[in-house]
């Protein structure tokens, strides 16, 4: 028997019918449905698939990765890692930015059944196009009925098909605590989009959602339940940037509330894009640069450990961030003198543009053994010298003040 024959025999003997049921042919899928309901989620930006969940046993389909995996990118540069789809495009809400809004008139209703959804997910997953499912939905006529269908879809995958890939489920505004509990039992990540940064801003985009009752109260349910149960990849939220005329400072402050009070894992930002036939179709498009700068402040707060009072220094008098890295603006305010990498604390090093957590740790560890003498050494630690130089002094030398302020 050749080694290949031996491997084939092992497959024959294996009692695990991993592909259950037999996979459909591609012709059996409604491709138009896949396309329309897929497009309904393209402004939901969370593409993370990292989860610490441990997959055990071998009677299953799939696994997860603690670092997450990107399976593709579109020419907009964004990662496609999950089968991201709406369950239905039918919605009773009147959000001014959304093409599925009830204010857009009658759309043709398109919906999956839980079985259909499971089959598409499994076909894409087993062909290695995606790392799992990201399931969102319009609210239909009755959000409880839709939420039941979403739960049934993920239950079918997890329990009947023994699918162990990644699942991110959107909680619909107004979902009951019992349903949220069931969701947590089945998925890696939950999210509920706040969409706007405050109650008054919410009223500018919709008359049908109650910010406190439908959104914040549900987020508290998720927070409280996930403290007692295991929600491996945590819960997240997303806000639309620029849909209701808010400034960056308002968004930043709502981000702080979300991290501190709601204990979210991540905040996502999606810059507003006007869509034809919606109430907001004539509003101006918001640049992705604005979204990017908000992500930078999120990073400074969450990863670098900056205090909000430091970050606030980056906002202009109108509450907007400058069109450059906010860390530079903050450095001008908080670094009253040039930083010596041989003496500064890790926290102070982190305040220097061009030095991140990794390079700061490397500097702190390396200088215990040997004094850092040359800038070239800093570059080897990962420091971006072009940005850091104006804020550093080495061997008593520093760049001129003019250089520092002209960065």
């Amino acid at each position, binding site marked *: 028997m050749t080694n*290949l024959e031996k*491997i084939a025999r092992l497959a024959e003997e294996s009692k695990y019918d991993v592909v259950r049921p037999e996979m459909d042919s591609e012709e059996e899928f409604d491709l138009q449905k896949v396309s329309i309901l897929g497009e309904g*989620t393209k402004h939901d930006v969370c593409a993370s698939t990292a989860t610490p969940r441990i997959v055990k046993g071998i009677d299953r389909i799939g696994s997860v990765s603690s670092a997450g995996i990107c399976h593709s990118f579109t020419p*907009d540069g964004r990662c496609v890692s999950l089968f991201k789809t709406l369950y239905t495009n039918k919605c009773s809400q009147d959000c001014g930015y959304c093409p599925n809004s009830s204010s857009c008139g009658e759309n043709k209703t398109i919906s999956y059944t839980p079985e259909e959804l499971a089959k598409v997910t499994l076909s894409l997953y087993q062909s*290695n196009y995606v790392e799992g499912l990201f399931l969102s939905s319009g609210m239909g006529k009755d959000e409880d009925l839709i939420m039941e269908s979403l739960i049934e879809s993920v239950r079918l995958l997890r329990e009947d098909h023994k699918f162990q890939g990644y699942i991110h489920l959107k909680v619909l505004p107004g979902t009951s605590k019992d349903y949220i509990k069931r969701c947590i039992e089945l998925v890696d990540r939950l999210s509920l989009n706040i969409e706007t940064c405050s109650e008054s801003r919410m009223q500018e985009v919709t008359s049908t959602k109650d910010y406190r009752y439908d959104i914040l109260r549900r987020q508290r349910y998720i927070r409280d339940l996930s403290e007692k149960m295991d929600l491996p990849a945590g819960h997240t939220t997303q806000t639309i940037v620029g849909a209701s005329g808010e400034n960056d400072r308002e968004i930043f402050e709502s981000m702080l509330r979300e991290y501190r009070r709601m204990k979210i894992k991540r905040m996502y930002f999606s810059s507003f894009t006007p869509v034809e036939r919606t109430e907001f179709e004539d509003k101006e498009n918001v640049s992705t640069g604005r979204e990017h700068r908000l992500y930078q402040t999120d990073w400074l707060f969450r990863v670098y450990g900056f205090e909000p009072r430091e970050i606030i220094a980056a906002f202009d008098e109108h509450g907007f961030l400058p069109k450059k890295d906010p860390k530079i603006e903050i450095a001008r305010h908080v670094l009253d003198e040039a930083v010596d990498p041989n003496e500064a604390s890790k926290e102070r090093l982190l305040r220097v543009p061009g030095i991140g957590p990794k390079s700061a740790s490397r500097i702190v560890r390396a200088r215990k053994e040997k004094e850092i003498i040359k800038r070239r050494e800093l570059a080897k630690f990962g420091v971006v010298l072009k940005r850091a130089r104006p804020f550093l002094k080495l061997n008593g030398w520093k760049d001129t003040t003019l250089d520092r302020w002209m960065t």
Partner: protein
Amino acid sequence: MSLPKRDLELLKANRRVKKEDIELAKKIEKEDLHTATDESLLRVRGLIREAGREMHNMKGFVRFKHMGKKLKYGYMKPEHHIGFMISEWFANRFPGVVIVLGNEKESWVSIRTEKGVESEESEDIKSTVEKLADVLGLETEKDFQGLWENYYKSQYADERKNIELFEKNMPAKFRKRARNITENRFYEKTLDELE
């Protein structure tokens, strides 16, 4: 604490590794690599990262076709010697299924059973798949590229078009090594629209 086993495997898998790189890696600790300024340590760190990056990308970019319930195969032509590392990783993801990854010259075959993972190196992917299909009595091939193409296009936001970012995240060399037909086709169409 010495260098993690995974890092050593990646270093050995790098096509450009030299004997002295491996000798050096055996003597150092993980932290030494993090704070390295010495050229030889930087080289070791770079080699590990390079093979690790290819490994990570191939886990995402490889695409499978299916024959029955028991056989999956996909094109892969890695630069580094990571064939088994990838095929075994997929075997663990899909227990009981024969995973074949490979190209015109070579292929890597793995399966995960109750007893663990079995692997075998074989000739070109076409012959390997034909032989396995013959033994397993499989004929019909299934492929979900059309489904993927439909879904993939639905995720593109033209107002955010950013070709440079796409090229950085999904470089041509990886698209070629995993034969990402849909992405290549859509990328070229987008480039044509720009001209």
